[in-house]
């Protein structure tokens, strides 16, 4: 496995040196031809590919490889449904450079997929900043791309996303099977209200992720009949949150909501809640608080956080997948294995349907995109279909709490949109 990855990485490096030399205009020309090329009948033994772009070495490798394995498993299993004469292959490229996921490397990986006419869809990337660099390229090429784990809001929605799709504005080529950052805010608001919390004090760390999360929580919590007592933003490089928490104490909230991550203040706020007398008040945030236990230890108890993905280990629909994965790779699934499996399933399914409607000929990439957009598929993470932006229409998130400083799974939250 390692050897294959290494070779793939080398191939990617070789390909990228070539791709980087090619001018942008040249790339656009070749890719436009790919979009409009007339379908030709498939010769026997025709190979079609799903490209996989993930960080497979360095610090991200532990999650990257388990994600890759999820996608490869789906491609493997889709083989038996391929039309006669077709072989489906997964081709994985590493987007890490010197151990860190790298947007430029991601782009050159995607370019090498585009230049290979057999690649009909791409699964990946893992990271939002890599996706931001890749989406304009796959969009220009009209190649379907399905993200298993990229959660930044502005990849699909809003003016930023429109800017990413500027070459082919009428054609949305980017889809994702996970939900978005800010929807965690909605899920947390629903959960807070279901616990009977009426009054909240919202703090955020003044960074993009934290602000989006807190905005969404504020909006949904209010809409759901809750009261937002006040909203405060943190200053950078501070270790004293006690004066802020004295204000919170005076406001008497049922729950303190934090938009941000443990290291920007999320951990210290929880600890200092105890020293000002707020230790019994509940504390909530998004996946940025998932490592709260490492800072606050047992003081994390009474805190809750969400992940923007279902807990596949606990989903009834995922049981078979979890078992097969374990048997094949002799390891438990990673955090995004099930998502990658679902993403590759969506891609394979769209390719199969596109081949069907082209009467056995190799389908155009545009036809695959159209089929992905029209997806209605049962996957281990639930039924998947996409809205016009490429986001899933039934986002499932999972909710966790802390006991003795350790996170425990509470339940899945299916968002009402």
């Amino acid at each position: 496995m390692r050897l294959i990855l290494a070779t793939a990485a080398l191939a990617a490096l070789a390909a990228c040196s070539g791709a980087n030399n090619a001018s942008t205009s040249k790339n656009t020309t070749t890719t436009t031809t790919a979009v409009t090329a007339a379908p030709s009948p498939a010769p026997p033994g025709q190979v079609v590919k799903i490209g996989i772009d993930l960080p497979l070495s360095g610090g991200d490798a532990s999650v990257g490889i388990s994600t890759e394995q999820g996608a490869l498993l789906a491609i493997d299993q889709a083989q038996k449904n391929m039309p006669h004469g077709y072989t489906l292959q997964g081709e994985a490229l590493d987007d890490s450079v010197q151990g860190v996921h790298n947007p430029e490397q991601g782009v050159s990986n995607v370019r090498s997929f585009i230049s290979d006419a057999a690649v009909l869809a791409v699964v990946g990337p893992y990271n939002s900043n890599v996706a931001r660099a890749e989406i304009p390229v796959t969009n220009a090429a009209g190649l379907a791309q399905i993200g298993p784990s990229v959660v930044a809001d502005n990849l699909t929605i809003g003016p930023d996303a429109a800017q990413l799709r500027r070459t082919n504005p009428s054609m949305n080529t980017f889809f994702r099977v996970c939900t978005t950052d800010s929807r965690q805010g909605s899920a947390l608001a629903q959960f807070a209200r279901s616990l009977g919390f009426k009054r909240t004090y919202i703090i955020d760390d003044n960074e993009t992720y934290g602000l989006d999360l807190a905005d969404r929580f504020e909006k949904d919590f209010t809409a759901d009949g809750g009261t937002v007592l006040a909203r405060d933003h943190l200053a950078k490089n501070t270790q004293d949150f006690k004066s802020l928490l004295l204000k919170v104490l005076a406001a008497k909230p049922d729950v303190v909501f934090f938009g941000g991550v443990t290291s920007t203040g999320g951990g210290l706020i929880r600890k200092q809640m105890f020293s000002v007398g707020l230790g019994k008040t509940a504390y909530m945030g998004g996946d940025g608080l998932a490592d709260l236990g490492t800072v606050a230890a047992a003081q994390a108890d009474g805190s809750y956080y969400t992940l923007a993905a279902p807990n596949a280990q606990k989903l009834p629909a995922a049981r078979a997948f979890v078992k097969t994965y374990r048997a094949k790779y002799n390891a438990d699934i990673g955090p995004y294995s099930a998502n990658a499996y679902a993403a590759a399933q969506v891609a394979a399914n769209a390719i199969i349907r596109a081949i069907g409607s082209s009467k056995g000929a190799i389908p155009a990439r545009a036809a695959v995109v159209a089929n992905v957009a029209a997806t209605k598929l049962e996957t281990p993470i639930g039924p998947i279909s996409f809205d016009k932006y490429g986001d899933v229409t039934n986002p499932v998130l999972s909710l966790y709490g802390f006991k003795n400083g350790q996170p425990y799974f509470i339940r899945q939250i299916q968002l009402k949109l």
Partner: protein
Amino acid sequence: MHEFLAQLVNGISLGGIYALIALGYTMVYGIIGLINFAHGDVYTLGSFFALTILTALGVSGELHGVALVVDVAIALIGAALLCGIVGVLIERLAYRRLRNAPRLAPLITAIGISFILENVMQIWKGPAPVSFPAVVPNPSVMVAGVAIGAQQFLLVGLAVVMMVALQLFIHNTRLGRAMRATAEDRDAAQLMGININRTIMLTFLIGSALAGVAGFVSGVYYQSTWFFNGFGAGLKAFTAAVLGGIGNIAGAMLGGFLIGIIESFATWKFGGQWSNVTVFAILILVLVFRPSGLLGEAVFERA
């Protein structure tokens, strides 16, 4: 009124930490005219040393009785001593050879040392905040409806005791007199037979040891530490030293408490994101309108 008092108590506690750090800034500035930007990181290093010592002693929670006194003393003195040694090493390696260079040169090496310390600490304890055991029990007394914890008394008490001890040392001992003479006129002091290198070394030893004390008490008070804490705390302590009059021991103390109170009130009245803005706006106002600070340069005098 109640909230005003609560914020005041919180501000004074926070100010105690700034004051301890500011003492080191002001001493070093007084004697060699250098703003030692690595000083904030020596403070963080102090909390790391204290944490390591406590872990080695097997302490993971509240202590009582003899164990409390003994273990806290070992951690406090150990952190202070180790920080003092680091301070002396920093002076020897990064500043001594540049003593007669243009003032910009040691300032830049100071920033370089700051980066080095931050990165060493990041490798040492990792990039995330680290938990610090709450060694000192924190029973509180109610004063006018505001709970004041034992840790807050300890923090402010230590800061005041350190400042008084430092004042007495500087004004009543031979070494203190040597420090004052060096600050006044380095060349003349050398002609009088004062060992300049040793005197400056002593200044760094004491200043950095005080930062070590601050590191220990902040660890106890916040029950956490982080490799990057020194950056923010150092800048605010520097502001405190300037506000009180850089080079002035009592001024550093006064400035430290004032900055703590101002930060606390700014958070209360204007919101958390404005606390830094308020503190640094004051730095600018002081530099523009009263560059010598509130108490001027009464102890160390430099041209």
